[in-house]
């Protein structure tokens, strides 16, 4: 982790001297599409710098501009303005050098090829046929080698796409919602493989709209909404970025309500305390303190801690601007 502070988009991004440790750099990147309804700005000015070895979550709801940004990082689309560089090169040059690779969100596979044929075809284009066995083993595709892509489950297809992305042995790996459409166990299996791999010093940037994925796998989270970066910082401070958690509990019937509420309000960084009957809910970034007080001092029961949905977090963040 290179940055310890959460800086909002309004603050100027920290400019650091050019170092060789930069995997990805976007400066003033914008992308406008011309649609039947007039021009649509999918990406409205993004500045982003990712250092070598970082694992970054690109978190945002659907339509936030994640896929368009990723397309520009990979040279699939040219930005309308601004620059993108990957290890100091143009994205296309980095793709040709095998330094950047990606698991794309949807499609990208031919249904009538077998798993092995797919891997072999892409490996041949990378000039990396010697890596076929290693990659298939690492992504557990051995048993599926002779199966047609059309007969593979969504999770298996995603693993195959992950294998294709590993073929050039990239230094920077980009994953665009890699677990979309997977069930919970498939999602865990995927991330386990991913984590083992990422530990080998790769830089990873993944797009997701699951808050938990960012929390579980990324050291740094970039929040994106409406084509802009809303917040960028260590994932551990994500709670602060997204407005904290809510602790709910039922107070004992014989407890004096007013002093209890006052005590909860006095806790550090609590943003709101609400009561309905004798069910109390406390919102703030430091849920542990509230939970502790509720369970011990106040003798409350039925404790429940909920994280805000991404949508509520986004509404809160966009209202600030």
């Amino acid at each position, binding site marked *: 982790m290179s940055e310890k502070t959460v800086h909002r988009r309004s603050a100027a991004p920290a400019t650091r001297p050019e170092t060789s440790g930069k995997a990805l750099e976007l400066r003033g990147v914008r992308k406008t599409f011309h649609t039947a309804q007039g021009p649509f700005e999918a990406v409205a000015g993004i500045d982003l710098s990712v250092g070598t070895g970082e694992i970054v979550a690109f978190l945002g709801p659907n339509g936030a501009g994640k896929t368009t940004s990723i397309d520009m990082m990979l040279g699939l689309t040219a930005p309308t303005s601004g620059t993108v560089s990957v290890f100091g090169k143009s994205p296309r040059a980095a793709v040709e050098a095998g330094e950047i690779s990606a698991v794309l969100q949807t499609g*990208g596979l031919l*249904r009538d090829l077998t798993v092995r*044929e797919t891997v072999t*075809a*892409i490996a041949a*284009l*990378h000039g990396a046929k010697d890596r076929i066995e290693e990659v298939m083993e690492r992504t557990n595709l051995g048993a599926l080698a002779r199966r047609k892509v059309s007969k593979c489950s969504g999770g298996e297809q995603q693993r195959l796409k992950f294998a*294709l*992305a590993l073929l050039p042995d990239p230094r920077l790996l980009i994953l665009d919602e890699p677990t979309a459409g997977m069930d919970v166990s498939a999602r865990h299996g995927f991330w386990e493989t991913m984590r083992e791999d990422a530990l080998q010093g790769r830089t990873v940037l993944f797009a997701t709209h699951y808050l938990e994925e960012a929390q579980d796998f990324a050291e740094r989270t970039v929040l994106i909404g409406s084509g802009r970066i809303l917040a960028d910082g260590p994932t551990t401070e994500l709670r602060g970025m997204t407005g904290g958690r809510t602790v709910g509990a039922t107070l004992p019937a014989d407890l004096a309500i007013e002093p209890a509420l006052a005590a909860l309000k006095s806790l550090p960084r609590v943003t709101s305390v609400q009561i309905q009957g004798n069910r109390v809910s406390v919102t703030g970034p430091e849920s542990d303190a509230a939970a502790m007080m509720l369970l011990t001092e106040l003798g409350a029961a039925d404790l429940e801690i909920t994280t805000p949905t991404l949508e509520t977090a986004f509404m809160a963040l966009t209202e600030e601007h």
Partner: protein
Amino acid sequence: MNATYVRIELFRQSRDIGNIMFMVFMPVVMYVLFGNMFGGGGADAGNGNVKFYIMASMAAYGAAVATTSIAGTAATESMLGWGRQIALTPMKPAGFVASKVSVAMIVAAVSAAAVYIIGIATGAQADAPWVWWSSYLIIVLGAGIFALYGMGVGLSFKSETAIGVASSGMVFFAFFGNVFLPLSGTLLEIARFTPMYGYAGLARYPLMEGAMANGRDSTDSLWMLVANLVAWTLIFAGLALWAVRRTRARQ
């Protein structure tokens, strides 16, 4: 272009049995039907016999249909996002087009060879071996322009029906290209400007040297046939380029 990629693509295409029947067996069957239906197949025609004339026509048709159909699969691939997957490899768009055209021409070569082998077995005759070789080579190489046509139409429509549209167009081209039955009069005058006329005329040139099958209508000059082929190559190449740019802009 990449040999392993072309090989895998070729295997993939060859597993589509329905398509292979369409591209290889149909021209063979058509040759057998047309070549023997009316009798008189053994009669002299130019530097060979009538069966050779029909064999060359049907092989040209089959080869052109094969390249159209194979190149048209680029449309389906593009819809499946395979183009984006390829864009993450060092292969350039020109390499993709070249690989596709190579696969299309290999299948065309097989399709035309099947017709020629049946032709040899059933009495197609030419005065000299060069008539066989030159017409076969013209058929295989010339079929490449219909790969451009297939890719252009396929990517313009960008749907599963695109290949069907492109293939149906081929039936009209073949009819007006003087491929199915000899045209004459006004129809022939119009036909001389259609896409398959130059290709089919050149495929039969070693045999007929431009003369018409009925011996009455005016003889085609070599340069006129070549001009037709070149003009349509440019038109189809333009269409294919336009279609490729259009799909890119849409991303």
